[in-house]
């Protein structure tokens, strides 16, 4: 098991009333989100994870140590001390 810090932003922060939480998981993103959902509420899983496609929801920015998960090559394996930042769909200019 590894310990990972999750930071929520924007509407996700408002909805789950938490800025930062530390959870233990088996190193997969699915297990990370499931572990967080046990603490934050069931709906967190659906808010962040697309169970049908078995991957993080496409419309989110899900960054591991600052790198968007979509830009990371190969199988994702979270490590002890990793920081995961999750943003709802946002933009600016």
């Amino acid at each position, binding site marked *: 098991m590894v310990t990972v810090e999750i930071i929520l932003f*924007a509407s996700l922060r408002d909805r789950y009333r938490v800025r930062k939480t530390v959870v233990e998981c088996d190193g997969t993103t699915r297990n990370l989100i499931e572990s967080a959902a046990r603490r934050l509420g069931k709906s967190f899983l659906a808010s962040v994870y697309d169970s049908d496609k078995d991957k993080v929801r496409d419309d989110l*920015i899900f960054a591991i*140590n*600052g790198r*968007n998960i979509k830009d990371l090559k190969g199988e994702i394996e979270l490590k002890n001390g990793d920081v995961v930042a999750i943003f709802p769909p*946002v*933009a600016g*200019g």
Partner: protein
Amino acid sequence: MARGFMGKILRVDLTAKSVITEEVDEKIARKYLGGKGYGVYLLYQYIKEYAMRGISVKDMDPLGPENPLIFMTGPGTGVPGFPSSGRHHVMALKSPLTGSIGSGNSGGTWGATLKFAGFDGVIFEGASDVPVYLSIVDGKAQLRDAGDLWGKNTFDTTRILKKAVGRKRASVMCISTAGENLVPMAMIMNDDHRALGRAGVGAIMGSKGLKAVVVAGKEKVPYAKMDEFVPVSKRCLEAIENNPVSGEGLPAYGTAVLVNVINTAGSLPYKNWQTSVNPDAEKISGEALAEKYLVKKGSCWGCNIACGRITSVKSGPYQILATEGPEYESLWALGSATAVKDLAAITKANHYCDEFGIDPISVGSTIAAAMELNEKKCIPEDDLQGLDLTFGNAAAMVEAVWRIAHKTGFGKYMAAGSRKLCEFYGHPELSMSVKGLEMPAYDPRGIKGIGLNYATSNRGGCHVTGYTIAPEIVGIPEKLDPLATEGKAQWAKVFQDFTCVVNSTVNCLFTTFALGAGDFAELLSAVTGWDYTDAEILKIGERIYNLERVVMNRLGIDGKDDTLPPRLLNEPLPEGPAKGQVADLDKMLGEYYKLRGWVDGVPTAAKLKELEIEL
């Protein structure tokens, strides 16, 4: 005249105090649309005319009477149901800040209201010997004395002129203190808090003695094919509402929400770009703004996105009871670039920028450059006159904004912009600008495509010329790795071309999170009656970008200027997810030129012919 246009442009000779009406040239409108495209075409006509008269545009004083100032709307502007189309565009032959082309785009209601008053655009030439303003009401345009308005700020000028016109829906565009003082980063304001923000167009207006343009009217913009327009409009508006960014992200948090996103990506420039991880980003973020100071949302005319933020700082030394913003760029420039973490101070400084009409990006970046010069002990104490320009000093930052607008004390040095300031103190490399225009809030060492866009952007260090942040960070229309260089040349080119279409339509760039060239082709075809294809739409954009480049070439700007500050090319980011990265411009620029059909920043004759650009 094709539908979508009112068919008339005002030409105002401020020297002679004459106002004449000209017809919109239909052939030019077909090829260049309106807004920026039509404006660029007009600028090139000035170059030809000046060449015949022996006037060198290279040596021309940007604050002299020869510099034309052109305000244009487009065929989409003011059309009910055309997405986010309350905007207008400004073009000037030469920016006082950069020496390159002057260009800007603003929201609000002014653009739409100009069309309701009966006109598509206004061209200002010459310079008045006394302050004047132009009143355009119900098809009649008159120059009037502005002696009593000169010296008044944005909000006073707006209120007084709206009252003078006596129409609830009148719209006022004006300059304020900075424009009157010919500060090269002065903005032109409209509807109180909207702005033609960059490249010092406010100083050009000030140099002409033109204080304001007030518009009011009740005309309707004609449609060509109402039966085709209604379903296309409905589909496009729904696409914007259903898009996660334009329908959810922007309305909920505005642009300010990007502070944490970009900081997480290690690309939020901090302390004049010495690094791009800001340890205090949370304190100046959109989330913090929403929690502490947000009152309600606001929107421009005809917009269903509503990204505007009405804010209020209720108490404390930076109290400001009613204001708008700050937007993402202001939060960054006045906050992160200067290492100021007091959100109230940033909000107040941003309010000053609107009140005095001065560009927060260039102002914040220039103050940040001054702070680094001061950190390196390059500024004599006597010059600073007691201003403690230390990174993180909120009070000094707010004071500096005021001093720049008023050109007092050390403010008169900073008012010249970061390039001249840093050159004056012997460290030109500390100016974080491209072609003299201060870059906005994305570090290209961590987001490579935006660096290529900054370097090749016609007006200088500008993000909205080709907003590759959409694919590189947001993932729209598809996700690109921000640290990769492959393919970025094509993306930068397409974004630059498409943005020219948006700025010539004229509507809001934010619609492009949901709409593509095909949607614009359908919307514009239905409104104008001309049958555009998506390929033709992109070709129009490419034509505009190339003609703008030709204008710049005549001003002496070419490939030597398509570069980035040495810090971004040579100094690797010291921390964060992009640690060790530099901008890698050399890996992208050659491919970009090849795709553009340019040699050393100059369009080839073959490319101009292909785009049907007649010089």
